[in-house]
């Protein structure tokens, strides 16, 4: 048993020995339980215990607690010890309390009373015990009880140094629990002046307190800056013998130096006064110079203390970001550390360089060390150092070195530790997007990511590549080709199948010309992966297949075969079964024009910031990863410190328009597919606030050639329409969705259609409730009957009050006359016979010759014409590019037969559109309506 000084407690030592001699865990527990029973008995017993015994038992309880057992008694005895007049008993009482008592204990009032007594003691050792207890467990109650007393102790001239030290840290603790306890006014200057105290221990403790106070109120404590710089200056110029015991392994007062350097980092710039700033820069230079001096000792303590000060000085230099010379010197110094033999130094140098990389003054200097950093990433034995190297590469990456850094990171990723892979994937994805000048490079990088580390590629990453490919025409063909090649690998990652499925479904046609990637090859390749994939990926593939039916009518039967297989019980997943059967029905029932509309190419995604960055930030809560060069701070004084960097990424929602659901279901974009499937309006309305960025969406022209979709959308409201027509009757469902978080009042839709026009197209609309609740959607039915031919279309006027602001929108309804077309099949002979017949007089025909408003795309033109309502007659016109159509417009009074011919001239990018019918106004209107579409 080792010798014990002070007063040993024999009983305690015996007990500890017993525990150590226990051969098994069970024996130990048995011994402890016996002891607990014994102590409990003593505490409850009739015999009053003297102070020594109480102390001994309380100490035993403490030991048992430290072994990891719960202690649920003895607190009262410990509190009793506080009022003992024996120091040793008091001390144990305080120890038990600081280790075992929660701040919200019921005993806190008793404890506070004892502390009060001890604070009033004339013996400084007792006062210190009380202060230490407050500093250890300081609570709100204590702040209230001692908020007045302790500041006095701190600044009073009578207080002993050792008490002042404790008082400063005690006050710091109380300030952290309740900020209001620090008195202002004259106290401020007295507290600041502690920086001038003769006793180094007092200054060290006071600097911690002042640092916290400055953070709360930088302006009030501004006076500390010049004092801190002076103090720092005296330390860094001191020889190591000057400060006696405050020199640590030949480094003068390293703790105080570091604290002062930290304190100065609260101000930007740290010193407004040019004189003070000059002295500070001298200090920083001296520290940098000293780093170059040969070490005064070989001990690691010497180098650690010296470098601790150096790193803190570099932090301050980076914080100031105003002295190019110091920044570059700091960078060179850290560069030397990169090849130091101490792992700790290499780690810290990499970390610190990350910050230097974000300064415009030192960014280039950091880049010089790229090779060493790449080596660190590959060769370091310690994963945490490798991680720092990765962070630094990320921070130093810019346009000039992006390709090389990304390539090196990709190479390393193949063997990288599992713990850092996910983060690396995010970083590579961000850099590749940010610095891509050529998006084929970007596509290559992301597909490589999936190949190398597919498991670590999160949704955000593969969503993003799809977003970008869809938005950039120039890369679509390349993406289709590359992903097709990647899918040919015998074992390819499921994420590759997802990306592949999505991209081929959209752009497979771009590579279908090559027989090696013909439609059926693409389909078979994708389908060969189907059975290996999770239900979510399978669902995505089914959507790809239905898109294939539209892109490649020639493989329709193969695809339908697959749908058939999966639409029954063979497909255990209900979602897949439903999807397969719905797609199958769609492909059977819908006419090719409906299919073409439904399965239209995805519209471009709204440009927005990548959500990957947000994910990366979430992963690293403590440290925000940076790849952003800040502008240097001007050396001219700017008051107030500013630590907040604007973080626009938080606002970015992390999903990508719900790609995880069927990829073609895009409420708010086209909305068309789900209309057909009949559940779009069951979907939740978008909850964006009225100030969000959704731009108004209203394009009535689009509805000439389609019947369903979102008619209008802005931040407040979404209006969808679904319509059906039979003969001369039409039925419209209007869906009003409130996108806001407030109800829309006085909600009244009404029709704008003159009486005269109403005699040609009559409409009845059912009224709706006047209040549209927040987030709710209501439906309104409208019946229309075409009586006679008319031009234009009726408008819908919607008025409501949002947030006390009246709102009004006027929208054209999709009720143009072509809606009452019935398609008519006819053969070439009868078509041209009729065509000639109707063309005999000018009154019956209308013709327009016009320039194509968008690049000529005959496939798209075909889709539009089919949506227009007439029968497209293939193979009649001698010129295969020409479209000819026939249809009958049904009205109550009469029917008007209509023929149409559209002749595209690719060379001139012009169209000639001719419409012939028995009624001239009809010809003109039909011609106008359709000509507007190209």
């Amino acid at each position, binding site marked *: 048993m*080792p010798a014990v000084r002070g007063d040993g407690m024999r009983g305690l030592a015996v007990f500890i020995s017993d525990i150590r001699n226990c051969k098994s865990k069970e024996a130990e527990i048995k011994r402890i339980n016996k002891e607990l029973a014994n102590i409990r008995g003593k505490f409850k017993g009739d015999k009053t215990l003297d102070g020594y015994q109480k102390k001994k038992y309380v100490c035993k309880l*403490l030991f048992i607690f430290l072994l990891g057992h719960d202690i649920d008694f003895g607190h009262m005895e410990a509190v009793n010890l506080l009022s003992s007049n024996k120091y040793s008993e008091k*001390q144990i009482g305080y120890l038990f309390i600081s280790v075992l008592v929660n701040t919200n204990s019921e005993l806190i009032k008793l404890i506070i009373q004892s502390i009060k007594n001890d604070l009033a003691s004339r013996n400084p050792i007792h006062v210190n015990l009380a202060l230490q207890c407050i500093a*250890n467990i300081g609570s709100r109650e204590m702040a209230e009880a001692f908020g007045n007393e302790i500041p006095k102790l701190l600044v009073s001239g009578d207080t002993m140094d050792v008490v002042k030290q404790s008082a400063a840290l005690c006050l710091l603790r109380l300030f952290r629990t309740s900020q209001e306890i620090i008195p202002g006014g004259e106290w401020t200057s007295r507290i600041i002046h502690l920086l001038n105290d003769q006793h180094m221990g007092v200054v060290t*403790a006071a600097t911690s307190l002042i640092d916290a106070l400055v953070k709360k109120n930088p302006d009030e404590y501004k006076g500390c800056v010049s004092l801190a710089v002076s103090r720092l200056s005296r330390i860094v110029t001191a020889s190591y013998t000057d400060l006696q*015991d405050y020199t640590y392994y030949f480094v003068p007062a390293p703790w105080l130096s570091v604290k002062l350097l930290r304190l100065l980092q609260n101000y930007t710039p740290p010193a407004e006064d040019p004189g003070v700033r000059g002295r500070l820069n001298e200090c920083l230079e001296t520290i940098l110079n000293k780093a170059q001096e040969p070490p005064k000792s070989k001990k690691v*303590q010497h180098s650690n203390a010296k470098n601790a000060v150096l790193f803190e000085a570099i932090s301050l230099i980076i914080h100031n970001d105003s002295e190019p010379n110091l920044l570059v010197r700091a960078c060179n110094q850290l560069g030397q550390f990169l090849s130091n033999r101490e792992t700790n130094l290499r780690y*810290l140098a990499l970390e610190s360089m990350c910050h230097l990389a974000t300064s415009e003054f030192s960014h280039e200097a950091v880049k010089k060390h790229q090779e060493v950093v790449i080596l660190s990433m590959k060769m370091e034995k310690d994963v945490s*150092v490798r991680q720092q190297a990765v962070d630094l590469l990320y921070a130093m990456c810019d346009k000039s070195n992006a390709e090389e850094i990304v390539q090196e990171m990709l190479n390393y990723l193949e063997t990288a530790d599992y713990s850092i892979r996910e983060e690396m994937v995010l970083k590579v994805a961000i850099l590749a997007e940010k610095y891509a000048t050529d998006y084929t490079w970007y596509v290559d990088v992301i597909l490589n990511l999936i190949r190398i580390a597919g498991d670590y590629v999160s949704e955000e990453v593969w969503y993003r590549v799809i977003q970008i490919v869809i938005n950039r025409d120039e890369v679509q063909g390349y993406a289709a080709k590359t992903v097709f090649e990647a899918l040919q690998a015998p074992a390819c990652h499921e994420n590759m199948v997802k990306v592949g499925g999505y991209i081929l479904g959209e752009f497979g046609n771009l590579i279908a010309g090559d027989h090696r990637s013909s439609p059926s090859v693409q389909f078979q390749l994708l389908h060969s992966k189907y059975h290996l994939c999770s239900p979510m990926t399978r669902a995505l593939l089914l959507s790809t297949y239905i898109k294939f039916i539209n892109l490649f009518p020639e493989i329709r039967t193969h695809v339908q075969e697959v749908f058939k297989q999966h639409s029954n019980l063979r497909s255990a997943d209900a979602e897949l079964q439903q999807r397969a059967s719905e797609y199958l029905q769609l492909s059977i029932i819908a006419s090719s024009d409906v299919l073409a509309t439904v399965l239209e190419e995805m519209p471009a995604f709204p440009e927005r910031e990548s959500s990957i960055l947000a994910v990366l930030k979430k992963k690293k809560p403590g440290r925000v990863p940076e790849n952003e060069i800040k502008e240097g701070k001007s050396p001219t004084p700017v008051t107030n410190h500013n630590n907040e960097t604007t973080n626009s990424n938080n606002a970015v929602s992390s999903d990508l328009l719900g790609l995880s659901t069927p990829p073609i279901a895009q409420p708010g974009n086209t909305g068309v597919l789900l209309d057909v499937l009949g559940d779009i309006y069951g979907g939740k309305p978008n909850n964006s606030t009225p100030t969000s960025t959704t731009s108004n969406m209203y394009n009535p022209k689009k509805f000439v050639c389609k019947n369903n979709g979102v008619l209008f959308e802005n931040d407040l409201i979404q209006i969808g329409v679904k319509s059906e027509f039979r003969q001369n009757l039409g039925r419209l469902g209007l869906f009003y969705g409130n996108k806001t978080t407030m109800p829309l009042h006085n909600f009244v839709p009404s029709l704008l259609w003159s009486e005269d026009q109403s005699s040609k197209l009559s409409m009845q609309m059912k009224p709706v409730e006047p209040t549209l609740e927040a987030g709710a959607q209501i439906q309104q039915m409208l019946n229309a009957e075409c009586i006679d031919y008319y031009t234009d279309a009726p408008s819908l006027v919607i008025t409501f009050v949002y947030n006390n602001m009246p709102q009004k929108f006027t929208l054209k309804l999709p009720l143009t006359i072509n809606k009452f077309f019935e398609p008519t099949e006819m053969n070439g002979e009868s078509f041209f016979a009729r065509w000639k017949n109707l063309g005999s007089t000018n009154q019956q025909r209308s013709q327009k010759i016009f320039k194509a408003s968008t690049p000529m795309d005959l496939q798209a033109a075909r889709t539009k014409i089919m949506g227009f309502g007439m029968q497209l007659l293939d193979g009649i016109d001698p010129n295969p590019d020409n479209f000819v159509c026939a249809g009958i417009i049904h009205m109550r009074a009469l029917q008007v037969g209509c023929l149409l011919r559209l002749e595209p001239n690719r060379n001139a990018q012009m169209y000639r559109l001719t419409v012939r019918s028995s009624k001239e106004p009809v010809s003109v209107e039909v011609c106008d309506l359709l000509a507007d579409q190209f």
Partner: protein
Amino acid sequence: MQFMLLFSRQGKLRLQKWYNAHPDKLKKKITRELITTILTRKPKMCSFLEWRDLKIVYKRYASLYFCCAIEQNDNELLTLEIIHRYVELLDKYFGSVCELDIIFNFEKAYFILDELLLGGEIQETSKKTVLKAIASQDLLQEDEAVEGALRDIGLL
């Protein structure tokens, strides 16, 4: 500093000092997690690691590991030297300290730590001053012990 833990190579906790209030359950969880993490690290590895939103600084002295949790912008190297100074103080006080000294005199280890660090901040970096403070505590205790003994035998 948020907390300091001392534990043995066998993973036994020898001392714990928390500068922020946490429920006991959480303390146990943190302790277990850190002990496992640190014990699996190899000797040549870096003494710092990122852990949750804190930084862990640790160092091994003979059979004992000293582990501190500090905030993001605290100085890692200097934290290593806080640990070293604490070890020096223990060494001076016990005379070539070993794990057993800390087990049998855990309360002393606490008292010494309280003189060095208070509320998680460095209070007194001078070795002499700290040792003097501890010595005067001991003196007080010894006086009291003598006084007690004298009273027991009826001399006072």
